């Protein structure tokens, strides 16, 4: 029996075109020499050169990177701990139910409500302590909060895969608590932890809404910059910037597929 008809093949190709056409046009127009409008004015790499000179963009790029790296680092540690704590210790069924609810909360909460919740939380903290102006720190905290669950879920998948017997073997071979944790459990979890960190990193790069609500005046990221610029009109510089980000995304995704061969199933 034929499992994929010609109709659905053609349809699928059309869908892929539908997904890629806009991105491709941006890439093409980033090499357009004419400054205004979308008339083709010849090939040029001028806009890429301009990007490097634009301090706002460089600053935004730097912010994006700092935000992604810091939040990924923190959330990977906290998320891994959370997964181990939840799935390697005995919990009563009721406690487990509540923990699971909390664990999945950041995953199912719509971005906008998440952002609103963060704004409220930050303003309460500010009201109580007088500290914590919106800025890079608040953005990192915000990103960490939604990344934790994704890391924990990735690590959980790995935890379920490896079972208990290897830890038991370590215990049987005279290893104490720390030795089992550091020499056996963590190394075995590493693929899950790496996958979780990758996920957290891309989620941070991908985020717009939470950054939009929690950013300070000087901590804008690239997506925020693009959003603000689009409001003022389309410029070739934005094409170039978007193209660079798209290429970076493609590289990251390819790298992810390479590094986590068992995460793809």
């Amino acid at each position, binding site marked *: 029996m034929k499992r994929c008809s010609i109709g659905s093949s053609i349809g699928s190709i059309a869908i892929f075109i539908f997904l890629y056409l806009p991105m491709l046009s941006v890439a093409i127009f980033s090499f357009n020499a004419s400054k205004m409008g979308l008339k083709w004015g010849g090939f040029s790499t001028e806009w890429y050169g301009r990007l490097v000179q634009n301090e706002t963009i460089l600053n935004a790029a730097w912010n994006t990177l700092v935000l992604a790296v810091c939040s990924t680092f923190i959330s990977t540690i906290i998320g891994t701990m959370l997964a181990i704590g939840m799935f390697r210790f005995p919990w009563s069924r009721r406690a487990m139910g509540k923990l699971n609810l909390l664990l999945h909360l950041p995953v199912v909460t719509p971005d906008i409500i998440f952002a609103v*919740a963060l*704004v409220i939380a930050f303003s309460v903290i500010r009201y109580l302590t007088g500290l914590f102006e919106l800025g890079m720190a608040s953005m990192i905290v915000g990103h960490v*909060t939604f990344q934790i669950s994704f890391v924990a879920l990735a690590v959980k998948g790995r935890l379920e895969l490896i079972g208990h017997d290897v830890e038991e073997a370590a215990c049987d071979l005279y290893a104490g608590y720390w030795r089992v944790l550091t020499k056996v459990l963590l190394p075995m979890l590493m693929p899950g932890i790496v996958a979780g960190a990758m996920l957290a990193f891309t989620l941070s790069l*991908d985020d717009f809404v939470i950054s939009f609500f929690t950013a300070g005046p000087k901590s804008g990221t690239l997506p925020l910059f693009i959003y603000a610029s689009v409001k003022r009109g389309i410029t070739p510089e934005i094409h170039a910037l978007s193209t660079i980000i798209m290429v970076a995304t*493609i590289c990251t995704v390819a790298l992810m597929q390479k590094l986590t061969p068992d995460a793809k199933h």
Partner: protein
Amino acid sequence: MQDESTERAKEAQPIILYNGEMVRPSIIRARQATFISPGILAIITLLALPCISLFAVAFMTRGQYGEILFEPTFGNIRRLFGFGFFGWSADNLLILWRSVVVAFVTTALCIALSYPLAFFLAARPAKTRLLWLTVLLIPFWTNLVIRTYAWLLVFDSDMPFARIMAWLGLMEPGTSAYPSQFAVYVGMVSVFLPFVALPIYTAVEKLDWSIVEAAVDLYSNKWRVFRHAILPQTLPGLSVGITLTFVPAMGMFVVPDMLGGARYMLIGNLIQQQFGTSRDWPFGAALSLVLMILTLGALMATGGRRKKGRA
């Protein structure tokens, strides 16, 4: 009761075992608390508690300068239902209704497109399948703002799409195809398609083809084969896809903001306005509350269906 009493008896024992380790229960409790507390505390203080506080904030009053006054009022809820200074207007209710409709239509369109895509991917030879999946994943990982912005470019008045539409007489010549309802749907579908396509693909890949073949044998009508042989088997993937799409689509803010403009606002934009330019947090909280309830309802509906699908 039985469970609890035996559990308590176990607690009373001086030592218990965990993972082959023999430890006192108090030490285990200390350890598990250490492991989970940073994560759980962050989620509780920064997400769960503020979400609950929305119930309170929604009933407070906005001060003159956008501050929150602790004066209980039903004003925000009344306003939500359209009772304002200038009499009743359907604007807010319309936005709410529109958000649900957009989410619903987007989800339906994504499902319709995902099935052929899933079968196409599943039919690829094992060697190239991963490549095709990566091709599907790349838009999924590309920044939302950039992807939406790319549609702005495609829909621009100078681009072929707007020209063809103008030539066909469907649009004013020299105008862009955005902001419009059509542009919002295109943007939404392109954003959410991978969210539906991937879980459905996973289900299709595991499909038991013998059932499909039996169905072809017995019914020989394409729709009936789909309805009785393919749909039941892919239902788990479908419900995951629906959850992943319908819920965030209702609260979507970037796409309608960039492609729909002020004329085609959704609840997400309205919420953003209250916390942004309008500085009306109580009203924003009331709107968020509504979105939260809608989300919960959607999750419960799909969750219930998933349980039924398993049985």
